[in-house]
């Protein structure tokens, strides 16, 4: 899920994706997005390397967004496609090696995709992740999360790139792969907001009090659930 580093602040390669395509993807996603306000969304395919950039206003404080992104033992909360996850022995101090196994499906083609990433928290508070190709189904992959406090909410920028190291049937094509990547990223943003809000709420008052106040037991389930986005808005 996490990608880019060298591409940060650089122009995305293959920025040849037409506005029409972007809006087609966005319109397909937006009815179910449920997350904060989308500020920017770019997705491109540069000869088999897929790049994505998303900037979104997330309705949760920055420290909770960061806490959720670095809660590696609960990383499965951020993406419903994850079927296995875990923390592997760290290769060096200050680096978390995180493994995820996801089931990726595009049309009729499903594949289990393994990804091992080395994640670093930078001095700036940003997060940088680099795929370990030898342990992953990717030739390369990088990501960067930039989380900025913006009043009571956060501005979250995600820039990532990845180069799959597995066969994708030509019939599926770049369009569907990109659409799937876009969906996965947006889904992760929805969950990120939901989980960060839930954690912030539980920090303010213990769950017992939340329940006693009549807040539904699943205060954020609706937000996390694709079928009922935005219930707390």
């Amino acid at each position, binding site marked *: 899920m996490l990608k880019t580093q060298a591409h940060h602040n650089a122009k995305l390669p293959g920025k040849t994706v037409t506005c029409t395509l972007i809006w087609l993807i966005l319109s397909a996603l937006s009815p179910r997005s449920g997350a904060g306000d989308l500020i920017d969304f770019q997705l491109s395919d540069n000869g088999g390397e897929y790049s994505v950039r998303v900037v979104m206003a997330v309705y949760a404080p920055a420290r909770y967004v960061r806490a959720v992104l670095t809660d590696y*033992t609960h990383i499965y*909360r951020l993406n*419903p496609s994850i*079927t296995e996850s*875990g923390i592997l022995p760290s290769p060096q101090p200050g680096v978390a090696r995180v493994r995820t196994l996801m*089931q990726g499906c595009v049309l009729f083609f499903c594949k289990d995709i393994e990804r091992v990433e080395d994640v670093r928290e930078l001095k700036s508070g940003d997060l940088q992740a680099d795929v370990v190709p030898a342990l992953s189904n990717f030739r390369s992959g990088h990501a960067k999360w930039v989380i900025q406090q913006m009043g009571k909410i956060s501005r979250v920028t995600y820039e990532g790139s990845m180069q799959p190291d597995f066969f994708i049937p030509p019939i599926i094509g770049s369009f569907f792969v990109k659409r799937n990547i876009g969906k996965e990223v947006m889904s992760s943003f929805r969950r990120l907001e939901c989980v960060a809000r839930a954690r912030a709420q539980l920090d303010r008052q213990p769950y017992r009090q939340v329940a006693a106040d009549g807040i539904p037991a699943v205060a954020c*389930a609706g937000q996390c*659930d694709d079928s009922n986005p935005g219930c707390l808005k």
Partner: protein
Amino acid sequence: MSPRSCRYVLLLAGVVSGCHTAPQVSYRQDVYPLLQHNCLVCHSPPQGAGYLKTGLDLTGYESMMQGSVYGPVIKPGNSRHSILNMLVEGRADASMRMPRNRDHPLTEQEIGILRLWVDQGAKNN
């Protein structure tokens, strides 16, 4: 062998033997007793540690299907993507394996029952 264990064995035997019609798992007869024995000490309101931490209440079918404050934990028909199954099977990080604070994880038999029940639609039967 207790009647419940006997039922588990029969249920799993049906699956393992490759029967095309898997035996129907019952929430009331198979799943709830298992949850009661392994999970309710923490996932019960008002004082259970797991309940207080996540809001997950496993004392009833409805509350279980509602999930935790972080969202649903069961995806009917799909045990692979159900968080409850992930956690009891140890597919999330090993430190997250449920039930926590117990000497032993669920048995393969119990894990199989939960998996089958979810794959059969997680019905309130």
